[in-house]
């Protein structure tokens, strides 16, 4: 097997080899980060300003951010944005159980 030569075995570190210059990598797609940030913003809006629609939007943004995230990313941040968005929905309805349809459209 002339093609195989053990002395040519090289350990390639993903951090070094992954530095492809100028090519917009999938990993550089900032959508997941933006979605996480939006989820936190909407959650704060929902909690502090008592906007139910913002709390719901936060849940969706957290989901989208989670599904687009890379495996190497910190799961704590994604988990915390999830928990924050769910808590903002729950708190909004505990404070005021009226449905959105009546609050906004009546």
């Amino acid at each position: 097997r002339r093609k195989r030569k053990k002395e040519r075995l090289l350990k390639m570190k993903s951090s070094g080899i992954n530095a492809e210059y100028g090519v917009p990598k999938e990993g550089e797609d900032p959508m997941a980060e933006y979605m996480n940030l939006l989820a936190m913003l909407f959650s704060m809006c929902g909690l502090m300003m008592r906007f139910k629609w913002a709390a719901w939007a936060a849940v969706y943004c957290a989901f989208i951010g989670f599904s687009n995230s890379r495996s190497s990313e910190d799961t704590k941040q994604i988990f915390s944005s999830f928990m924050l968005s769910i808590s903002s929905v729950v708190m909004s309805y505990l404070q005021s159980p009226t449905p959105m349809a009546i609050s906004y459209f009546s």
Partner: protein
Amino acid sequence: PTPSVSSGINAEYGDFEGINPSDKPPSGKNELNIVNAPVNMKGHWEDYYLEIIGLIGVFVYALNFYTGKSINNRLANAWFEHHKKLLSDAFCIVGDDGVSKEISEDVLVKESENRFVLWCTGRLGCEGIKIEIKLLRRQDLISVLSQIFKPQSDTITITTYMSPEDMDSVVLAVMPRKGLKRLQQEVQDLAHFATEKKADKFDLPHQLGILAEFSEVSNELLSVPVCKTISENIDVFDSIHFSDYYTGFKISQESQTETERPKPVKRLIFNFVIPGHGKRTKSSIMETTEPLLRMALHMMTRVHKFKLSKENKTKAEKHRIQVEEEYLKQTHAQRQEAAQARRDERKRMEKEKMQELDPEAQRRYEEREYKKSMRRSGPRVKQLKVKTG
């Protein structure tokens, strides 16, 4: 005297009728009993239609997430399983995880729910290869919906890492004509070195164009079997790009600085697409890249063995030195500008500081600056002491 309680205005007690002020308030505890009355939810569920729609949306998104994730995992593993034998014959190590210190095997690294990476190494003529399986974002409902309007495909990108001694000065690209001109402007090495070559003499589909530094390169590397394989698998082939001076895409002039300019490296990049625009999700669809993967392995060996003629080699080296010098000149001017800007900024800050000090300190500072500038501009003059008298 007791005010009358008849009807009419009573100045002291206001407009109350029928009240006898001497009446005692009712006896008993003054406590307020708050009764826990249940919220009346009967018959008002229809008012919560927005919330129900929201919940259904979340549920649908979660369902799509798990479905999409499992399809992507299945497709990636199917590709790996099908091509493992071919890669094992070509490389000592297939599926290193690329992270741990010990060498591992059979690891398909999952970068995200739609991106998988396979590292292979242990072959003469190259340092190793990185195979990126970039699938559609089937796990994200938004991407699934946008796929309806703008269909995209699953892609496989094979990047071969060549050491300096593994490859001669080769710049070659074969890609669809549509994107050829744009890519030639955007990719640095193609812009500097490659020119379009006639594709007529090669048995390639008409929609493909060729960029090469020398005709010798395209004639030698695009052999008959290679062209035949590409033609027979044109629905899977996307592009190839070989370069001994790969520096990626052109960065815009404003952001380009010395530190950001990447060092040129030697790379062979093969891009394949999975036919069907992502609609076909049977595992067997991943087998369609096998002939092109064979071709890629064959081309790695050909490029490794290929040597330019002396004349072309000299031209290529001269050209690269020219490009390098031009780049250094450009960045030299930029670096000088940056240094000058820093000096001006520092002077301005010092002047502002001086304004706040007393006139004596200002005078001393100005004298110092004057002496400095005289020293810089004028020639050094030796002082001679002449004795008089």
